[in-house]
């Protein structure tokens, strides 16, 4: 069960990310990013993070990607053209990304024995549910950072309104 979930949705996430990289039109990239985010939500659920799986679907593939698609349609973004500067990026971009991937996966696989394996749902929800654990931590121990994020959101709303307003 765990292995099947990981293989199916991990492959879906990687395929979505590769499609995101290869598509020329921004709206196609945005929709393949939605595929990546929803498969990541299912992987979170298989790791025992039910609350984050729901929040991933609602916040990321719901709110954030709708905002992106809305801006793409508002600005009427067409196919991207390749300019002179993007050839240098090809020479640096692919080897750089491959080097980062090789380094990270070497470290993870060489430490693989020490890291252990996953059991479905995890040990997090043995006694109480995942959501009650998160909420007791968030509303008791981390109450001040949680309230500060509301001020951050308020400032972000004001900043977005001021920046996107038509100048007179």
């Amino acid at each position: 069960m765990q292995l099947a979930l990981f293989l199916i949705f991990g492959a879906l996430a990687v395929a979505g990310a590769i499609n995101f990289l290869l598509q020329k039109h921004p709206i196609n990239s945005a929709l393949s990013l939605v595929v990546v985010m929803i498969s990541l939500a299912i992987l979170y659920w298989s790791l025992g993070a039910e609350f984050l799986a729901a929040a991933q679907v609602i916040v990321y593939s719901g709110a954030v990607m709708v905002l992106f698609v809305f801006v793409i349609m508002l600005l009427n973004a067409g196919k991207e053209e390749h300019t002179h500067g993007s050839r240098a990026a090809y020479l640096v971009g692919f080897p750089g990304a491959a080097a980062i991937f090789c380094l990270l996966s070497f470290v993870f696989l060489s430490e693989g024995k020490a890291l252990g394996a996953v059991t479905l749902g995890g040990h997090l929800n043995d006694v109480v549910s995942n959501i009650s654990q998160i909420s007791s931590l968030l509303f008791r121990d981390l109450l001040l950072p949680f309230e500060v994020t509301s001020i951050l959101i308020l400032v972000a709303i004001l900043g977005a309104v001021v920046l996107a307003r038509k100048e007179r």
Partner: protein
Amino acid sequence: MATVVPISWYLVLAAVLFSVGVASFLLKRNIITIFMSIELMLNAVNLTFVAFSHLWNHISGQVFVFFVMVVAAAEAAVGLAIIIAIFRTRQTLNVDQVNLLKL
């Protein structure tokens, strides 16, 4: 139940997603797509947070992912407003033509 998945596979999947995010950040020319590849990298990092939270049986990794989501949502709102302002003044979404600060 022999079909368990090693934690390191989840981390390698996150490394794949992060590297694709880095590659598309460097290769894409459209400013909206570049902004979306930042979101892809943030998602990859969130997956490592959840995997390690599972590994240590500790909830604080998931709370950290919650705060990353909050900050990413705020960042998306402000960043898209900046993109709209750039498009309004320069009439382009190509990053090569947004070169006012270039020497």
